[in-house]
């Protein structure tokens, strides 16, 4: 199993696919594969942007006396 790509990896792969498709020199059988992969990457990126909940975590205080 390959690890889930990071946003950056997904982004780079999607860019490569779009470039190839825009050149229009892809075989029809490969087109289906590429297009499906592209859609999957697009959905993954979009989900990361919209569904990922931002989080701010404070590590345990170790300084003791100071007020928070």
């Amino acid at each position: 199993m390959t690890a889930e790509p990071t946003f950056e990896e997904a982004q780079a792969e999607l860019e490569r696919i779009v470039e190839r498709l825009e050149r229009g020199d892809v075989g029809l059988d490969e087109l289906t594969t590429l297009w499906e992969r592209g859609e999957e990457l697009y959905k993954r990126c979009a989900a990361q942007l919209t569904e990922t909940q931002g989080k701010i975590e404070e590590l345990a205080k170790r300084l003791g006396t100071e007020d928070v």
Partner: protein
Amino acid sequence: MKVESIEIDGRKVFSVRAFNQGVALWLKRLPTVWVEGEVTELRRQERWASVFFTLKDPEDGACLSVQMARGQFDALRLELVDGERVHVYGRPDFYEQRGEFLLRAMSIERYGLGAHLAALERLKQKLAAEGLFAAARKRPLPRIPRLIGLVTGNDAAAKRDVLTAITTRFPPAHVLVAEAYVQGPRAVSTIVAAIDDLCARGVDVLIVARGGGSFEDLLPFSDERLIRAVVSCPVPVVSAVGHEQDTPLVDLAADVRASTPSVAGRLVVPDIGELRAWLDRAHGGLQRGARRTVESHQRRVTSAAERLHRAPALVLERRRARLAATRGRLLALSPKATLERGYAIVRAGGAFVRTPPALGTPIAVEVAEGSFGALVE
């Protein structure tokens, strides 16, 4: 003065008092000197004749007890607090009653700006010579960080500024905040501990932020231990310390220097609007590219079909042309053209006549415009 000893079994033996006296005498011959260190455990009480503190070496923690007459100390009006760096002018002394070594201070000067600057400059040269500030060492920041580490004071405006900048620009950001003292004697060790802690928790970029402050307040950010911690940090570090005009050494060691905490926040995350726009463009490109690919295949198929349809007609046409050409050549070879010039073809009994035939033989004569029969005379 002679230190008294007694002879016991041929052995020279001193009393404690005499021994201490002797040491004190010997120490008194040492010169008066300036000693530099950090003030710790300062003890001063109105009812005491002296003020006591420990002078600590900031590098390795070596300690020296210092004593100064309270009147003299108060007259300096230094308002010293623990952790401050000073120069103490004094001479070694020995508290005979307790057998304790100490420095008897005659004057104290706060470690001046000039001394600080000179020390900073020396450290800067040394670290630069090691290549710690080299541009080649600088690492690029991740385009989209998975986990951002932030080291800052616990109630600092700097913290708020960084977090606001990050969450405004990129709401899905995940930030891990570690607090540290950002000034005073414990700043360096707590900041270094926070950096190590955040790295161990897997951050992929680190911000060290502190708002503006006095020259002394910002000194921990030029401390050698802190600089080395930043340099050896496994992920890129963004420094945002003090104001634009301050250049603590951490700014030189960091991978990226931000002029303010807000700028640091904006630097570590991408703009979500731009990212969404990119994603929409990519998606559009995907659809367009797929359509274009299909269309180009369609065009190819169509043109192949057309050529296929045209092919039989083309073959026929070519044959026709060849036939015409052959016919031309055939015509050129026929005797008709010769007849036009006035010659005649004479046949007797169907055969060409090449020798004069017998008289009365019927012959057929063919000329350009027609033919007729005749008899040989």
